[in-house]
C-alpha cells in the first residue's frame, strides 16, 4: 500500500470543499468572515491569536521551513486552524488564493477591501497580540507590496508540479512560497509574524492544494520512510497522518457531482 497518495477509494462522507477565494458564494464568504471575527474575540487557545502565534511569535516558533516537514507541518496547521473556525461556524472552510490568477491586480478582493458592509473586513487585517509583535508598535497586521515579479506565474507552478521526486518538488514549491510572502511584505514578510495576516491562511491553502495536486499526479512518490512517523508539534499528528486529505475530511475539487449507484439503502 502506498501512503503518499490520496486514496479516494470510498464514497466520501461529508467531505468539506476548500474553494478558490475568487469563487466563494456570498454565504460562504459571510461564514468565513463570521468565523474569523468570532475567533478574534476569543483570548484563549480557541482563538485566532493563539493559532496565529503558533507559527512564530510568541515563542516557541513551531513552524517548519527548509525541511521535508514544510508541507506536512503546514497541512496540519491549516487543519487544526480550520477546525477552530468550524467550532465557531460549522462547515466553514479555508479558501485558497491562486496567486497566478490575480496578476497584475494582486490580492483577491475579498482580502483586499479594508471595509465591507460598513464594517472592518476581518480578512484585510488582524490585531497582533503584544507577545506576537516584532516591535511594540506593530499592533496590527500591515502589507507593503513588493516586486510583482516575486509572485509566481502559471508556468513556474507547472514546472514545480512536473517534478517527480518529493524533495525537489518541496524545495521548489517552498521557494515560490517564499516569494509570495515577500511580495505581500509587511507582516507577511517575516516568519515570526506572518500567520497573523488573514491572507496567510489563503496563501498556505494554495500551497497545500498544490501539494495535493502533485500527490494526485505522482502516486507512489512518498516521503522517505524515516519521515513518515515524525511528529509535527504542537499538533497531535504525524507526517503519515497528513498524507491523505480525504482522511482529514476535506478536498480541493472545484466541483463535484454525484448520482446514486446500483445499491440502495
Amino acid at each position, binding site marked *: 500500500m502506498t501512503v503518499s497518495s490520496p486514496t479516494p477509494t470510498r464514497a466520501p462522507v461529508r467531505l468539506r470543499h476548500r474553494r478558490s477565494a475568487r469563487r466563494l458564494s456570498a454565504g460562504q464568504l459571510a461564514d468565513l468572515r463570521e468565523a474569523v471575527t468570532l475567533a478574534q474575540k476569543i483570548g484563549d487557545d480557541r482563538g485566532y491569536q493563539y493559532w496565529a502565534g503558533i507559527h512564530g*511569535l510568541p*515563542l516557541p*516558533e513551531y513552524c*517548519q*521551513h*527548509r*525541511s521535508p516537514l514544510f508541507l506536512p507541518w503546514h497541512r496540519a496547521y491549516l487543519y487544526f486552524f480550520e477546525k477552530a473556525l468550524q467550532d465557531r461556524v460549522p462547515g466553514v472552510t479555508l479558501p485558497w488564493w491562486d496567486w497566478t490568477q490575480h496578476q497584475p491586480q494582486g490580492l483577491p478582493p475579498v482580502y483586499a477591501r479594508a471595509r465591507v458592509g460598513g464594517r472592518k473586513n476581518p480578512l484585510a487585517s488582524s490585531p497582533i497580540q503584544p507577545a506576537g509583535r*516584532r516591535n511594540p508598535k506593530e499592533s496590527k497586521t500591515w502589507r*507593503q507590496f*513588493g*516586486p510583482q*515579479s*516575486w509572485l509566481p506565474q502559471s508556468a513556474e507552478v507547472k514546472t514545480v508540479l512536473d517534478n517527480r521526486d518529493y524533495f*525537489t518538488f518541496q*524545495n*521548489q514549491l517552498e*521557494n*515560490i*512560497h*517564499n*516569494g509570495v*510572502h*515577500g*511580495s505581500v*511584505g509587511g507582516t507577511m*514578510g*517575516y*516568519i*515570526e*509574524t506572518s500567520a497573523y495576516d488573514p491572507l496567510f491562511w489563503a496563501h498556505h491553502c494554495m500551497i497545500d492544494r498544490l501539494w495535493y495536486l502533485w500527490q494526485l499526479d505522482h502516486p507512489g512518490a512518498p516521503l522517505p520512510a524515516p519521515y513518515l512517523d515524525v511528529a509535527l*508539534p504542537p499538533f497531535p499528528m504525524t507526517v503519515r497522518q497528513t498524507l491523505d486529505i480525504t482522511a482529514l475530511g476535506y478536498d480541493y475539487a472545484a466541483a463535484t457531482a454525484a448520482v446514486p449507484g446500483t445499491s440502495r439503502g
Partner: protein
Amino acid sequence: MVDRFRSKPLELPSAEHRVDRIDLAFYDLDHSGSTFEARVFIGAGRGLKRDAGTDHPAYAGSLFIFGHGACSGEEGHCDVPEERDPFDFRLPHHLEPGVQILTVTEAVKRLVEAGKDKATVDVFVHGMEGEALKALSFSQLRLLTYA
C-alpha cells in the same frame, strides 16, 4: 553578508554528454535576517548591472529566502549550536542554515551549446522593496549535473 556575489568560474558539463537536469546548490544559506530575492545569472560576463531583470539572457532563476527577522528571544536564543549530539532528537535549531537548490538546466544548456566550458555565477540580492540588501551568506556553491 553581501548584496552581490560573483563566483569563480565553474566547470560546465561537456557538450558530448546527455544531461537531464542541472542544479545550483547553495549550502549553509543564511535566513536569519529579512526576506529577500537572490537573482541568479550564469555566464553573464563583466558589466552585469544590479538592476538586470528576469529578461536578461543570462538570467537563470531566483531563490526566495523567507527571513526569520530579528531575534525575539533572550541572549543566546538565536545562536545556532555548532555541534549536534547524534542522540538529540529535537528538531533542528530554527536558524540552522539550509541548502537551497535552483534548477538551472536551460540556462546552462544554452551556454554549453554556445561552446562555453566554464561560467561564473552572479547573484544580486533584492529586498522586499527592491532595494539592495546585504543578506546573502552561504558556505559553498555547487553545480550538480544529472544524466
